């Protein structure tokens, strides 16, 4: 009996020794047939069990089971090792250089004026303001006269206009609007207060172009008309909006300013978003950045559109979208907006 046990133990030792030599799936399978197969060495050795006596068998059987389990377990481990290795090699063949560039896929972009317009519209929409549009070729009457700028008024110098050839009709002469204020007039003629609108749109002025002036540019104006609307509301609204656009620390200040369609009128400044008001290159060391003009809608303008200025009051403001975009994105030349240079535009993708 001890011979059989010894034979089993020798077999285990030999078989485990040769298992290490099986380095791929095929040689491992050969080992399995040789050792664990129906005619394999284990089966052959176990034939010796039949020669043992009944009392010897349990002990020998125990050893045989242990050896079989050991060989099968080692086989499984070896198989897994080899399969892992195979898979590793297969995946290795699929190695990528992850640092290669991404697949070329052109990214689209929105024009910076579109982007800033949407931001401004979004900020005002929270406060109940609707965006309204109007024509770019306008009547003189809407662009000037009803805004308290009668013909031959010196304020027309501030907004030199492009006129349309042969263009005259019910509203006087036709011109390219110099501001989006005519949209305010059209809105007030068509709707009763309360009114809260903003009017973004293209505008045109006959002036020389340089890094901060374009003859075609984009404005956004806001208008609010209701009972008891005050300049303090204007300041509160502009503060809320500039904080959305330029950060929560922004403060708004008013300086007295002259625009014929508002009274009182104001120039609007914001604390510099770059230096927080301490003074830097962007704000020309003043700590303040000029945003645009504003004020309480002139009583004559309200009267012109049939709104009683003794009952209603309103505020209005206007500013250049390009100027906002320049501040927001750090653009230093307004002419880039209409140059349509892809190298510029793609930076807004």
């Amino acid at each position: 009996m001890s011979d059989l046990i010894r034979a089993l133990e020798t077999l285990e030792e030999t078989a485990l020794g040769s298992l290490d030599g099986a380095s791929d799936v095929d040689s491992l399978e050969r080992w399995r047939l040789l050792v664990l197969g129906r005619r394999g060495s284990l089966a052959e050795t176990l034939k010796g069990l039949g020669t043992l006596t009944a009392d010897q068998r349990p002990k020998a059987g125990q050893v045989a089971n242990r050896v079989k389990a050991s060989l099968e377990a080692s086989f499984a481990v070896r198989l897994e090792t080899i399969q892992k290795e195979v898979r590793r090699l297969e995946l290795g063949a699929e190695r990528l250089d992850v640092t290669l560039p991404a697949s070329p896929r052109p990214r689209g972009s929105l024009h910076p004026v579109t982007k800033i317009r949407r931001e401004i519209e979004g900020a005002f929409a929270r406060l109940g303001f609707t965006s309204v549009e109007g024509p770019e070729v306008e009547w003189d009457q809407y662009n000037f006269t009803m805004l308290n700028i009668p013909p031959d008024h010196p304020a027309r110098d501030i907004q030199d206009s492009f006129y349309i050839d042969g263009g005259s009709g019910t509203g006087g002469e036709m011109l390219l609007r110099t501001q989006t204020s005519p949209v305010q007039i059209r809105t007030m003629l068509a709707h009763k207060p309360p009114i809260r609108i903003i009017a973004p749109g293209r505008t045109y002025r006959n002036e020389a172009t340089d890094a901060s002036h374009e003859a075609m540019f984009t404005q956004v104006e806001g208008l609010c008309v209701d009972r008891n609307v005050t300049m303090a509301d204007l300041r509160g609204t502009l503060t809320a909006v500039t904080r959305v656009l330029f950060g929560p620390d922004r403060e708004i200040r008013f300086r007295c300013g002259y625009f014929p369609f508002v009274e009182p009128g104001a120039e609007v400044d914001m604390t510099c978003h770059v230096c927080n008001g301490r003074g830097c290159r962007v704000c020309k060391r003043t700590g303040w950045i000029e945003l645009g003009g504003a004020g309480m809608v002139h009583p004559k303008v309200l009267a012109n559109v049939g709104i009683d200025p003794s009952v209603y009051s309103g505020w209005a403001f206007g500013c250049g979208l390009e100027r906002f975009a320049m501040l927001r994105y750090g653009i230093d030349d307004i002419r880039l907006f209409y140059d349509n240079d892809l190298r510029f535009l793609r930076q807004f993708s």
Partner: protein
Amino acid sequence: MRVSLKWLQDYVDVTVSAVELGRLLTMAGIEVDAIHPVGVAWDHVWTARIDGLSRHPNADRLQLVDAYYGANRRIQVVTGATNIAVGDIVPVGLVGTRYRDSHVSPPVERTLQPTVMRGIPSEAMVMSGFELGLNDDHSGILILPTETRVGVPLSEALGDTVIELDLKGRPDGLSMIGVAREVAALTGQTVRFPDGDIQPSRARRSDEPLGVTIDAPALCPRFVSVLLKDVKIGPSPAWMQERLQAAGIRAINNVVDITNFVMIEWGQPLHAFDYDRVPRGHLVARAARAGEILQTLAAEREAVTLNPDMVVVAGHPDHGGHPYSLAGIIGGALTEISEQSTSILLEAANWKQSNVRRTARALLPRPTDASRRFERGVPQDHALPAALRAARLMVDLAGAIMVGDAIDAWPGHASRDPIRMPISECTRLLGITYQPETVASVFTRLGFAFSMHGDGPDTVFTVEAPVWRLDIEQAADLVEEVARIDGYEKVPSTIMEGALPQLPQAPSIFWEDAVRDILAGSGHAEIVPYTWTSVARLGRVPHAASSDLADLVDARVHPNVGPVRISNPASGDQEVMRTSSLQSMLDAVRAGLRHADRDVHLFDVGRIFVPRAGDLPEERRIVTIGLGAHRSGDAIGERHENSFHDLKATVEAILGRLGINGHGYIALAHPAFHPYRTAAIVLDHRPEAAGRKPVRPEDVIGVIGEVDRAVASGNGIGERVLLASLDLDRVIAKARDVVPVTPLPRFQAVIEDLAFILPDAIPAERLTSSLLRTGAPLLERLDMFDVYTGERVPVGTRSLAYTLTFRAPDHTLTGEEVTPLRAKIIAQAERQVGARLRGPDA
């Protein structure tokens, strides 16, 4: 307006620094454009008296100056100047003085070094205005006023600060007195008015006639005329020249300088006529006559031709009635003061703002100092005080005598109503509740006469309209005065209350942005071209000549109409508003291709301008897409051609987003495009009726195609370009944002593939349409998965393979249902469009 602080101090004490004054004025609505310090570079320059002059022993053209500059200090200076005499007070620069050297061009700044000139050492220089940087006069040494203290630093004697003010809304700011009033109000000082006290030296004699006639009182509300005799023309005193210089006005002679000085002082333009050239001393303010010619005193001395809308000051009609001056704008040559003039007729008149402005703009290249003031408004009340002030100065500085009283014709005299301002108006407009004392104090500081009634929040102010503030007309104007003087920074910041308005958002803005998002999201860059262009540029994309469909396409997105023309363009590229967005897109594609050989994918959501008779032009929203020939492939370095169908996919994405269906593409011949790679995009398209039913004009919404090679190269592009252009307004009218969802199917589908042979001449959509119509309603989907042309199909045909998905909404289809339907589909395809089923070996 350039304001010399030194001059300003004549009328008000300036108690704050120039920088602080600038800040105060700016916050109060008078913007300071610049502050120019005068004399900061005069570190080593002193005022000196010339005690002796002698010839240089070794040079005829040089003089030796014995200059005394106080406290027993003297210095000998060598100079080439000849305009100096013993007793003159001049600036002397010692070693270290920085000066401008005009002997070289352009002038350079130098520092004075000790030198020896022809054997005589020189350690100082007597200086010209040019060398001091004070003015452009380098003809001689600057002679200082005789009252100048000797031996003080020049900056003390002559230093000044000039503030440049931007006075958009404040006509009164175009005068020193106006600025002084403002400064007084802001700093709590009082204004000192200049000396205008004068009595005639004697009455007029019968041979000294004087008269004024106002023929056009609506245009000339007031005319003051003063006669001055015994005038001695000569230079004006240095203090006056200095002040004029600081204001940017050239000194000419005492008479002209006095009129300019008073104009700046009071803001009231004056004009001096040579009395001896004015028959009967009579001036007439009248409308010009058509074709009348006036020789003006403008710098160019040009003669201007007048018309009856203009106003002149003219002579007596019995003496020809010649025009003497363009009223309120510029004088004329006929009555010009000369060196020999001894009698002066002084005009201080008031002219209608709009008329002065229109006339000046029509006749002169730029406004004059006078017209700038009149067009903004000059108070009628200033005419007499300004005239008397000028007379006083003529007496003091030009040896004149005033003869007789001034004539004062004032037909336009009208009193202005007092303005009522309840203090509650401040609260209503500003959101600030002021104490009545605060408001009263502001009005007092401004010099406004007022009375108060009631108490506390019920206080009502009644304010006399100040004559010098023509801009103050109503309560709102007074509210602004209170706010700006008390401080705009006191306006609080509040969040609005009240009902939200119910103003609907215009759908167009929403849709424009939806289209932008689709295009940017699919790799296109948004461009914004100028909306103006030139006729020549527009002409680079031709219009249809004869085809009906192409005409309809043109009418929609590329109308062949005379464009809206700008009458005063700044350049040829701005002469018209664009009637089409195609050319500007080609320009942008060309520019894009300069920097990239692929992925030039652009879009423009903008307007074109279509003229309408007697009305504003139609501003039609157009979306335009432009593609260069190539796009990036999937792999690095790979490049694919952009195809018509790539662009079509983009158009489909847009139309899909807008909820459009039932549209189609009809092959189009158009001279701007490739004859076989272009389509009109139409709504309500029925392929089965194509060619038989005319397309309705309102159904055409755009064009898509490859640009004609010659047109592309005419626009500077040497490769294939694809363009699509859609009338967005037209599409938006049909757009739906919410498309109801179709429930998901509950039963199995039967899926089959079928291939057909179709003659090339038959558009594929006709086969598709036949299959769909025959298969309805069980044919749920039809997807083309292969298009084959080649040797395995007959010449002149192609194979189109489809996957057909059959499904019933209420049960699972059986073979018995599908088989006959399939047979019917195949048969109908053959009958309707001549398509044959492609067999396994075909």
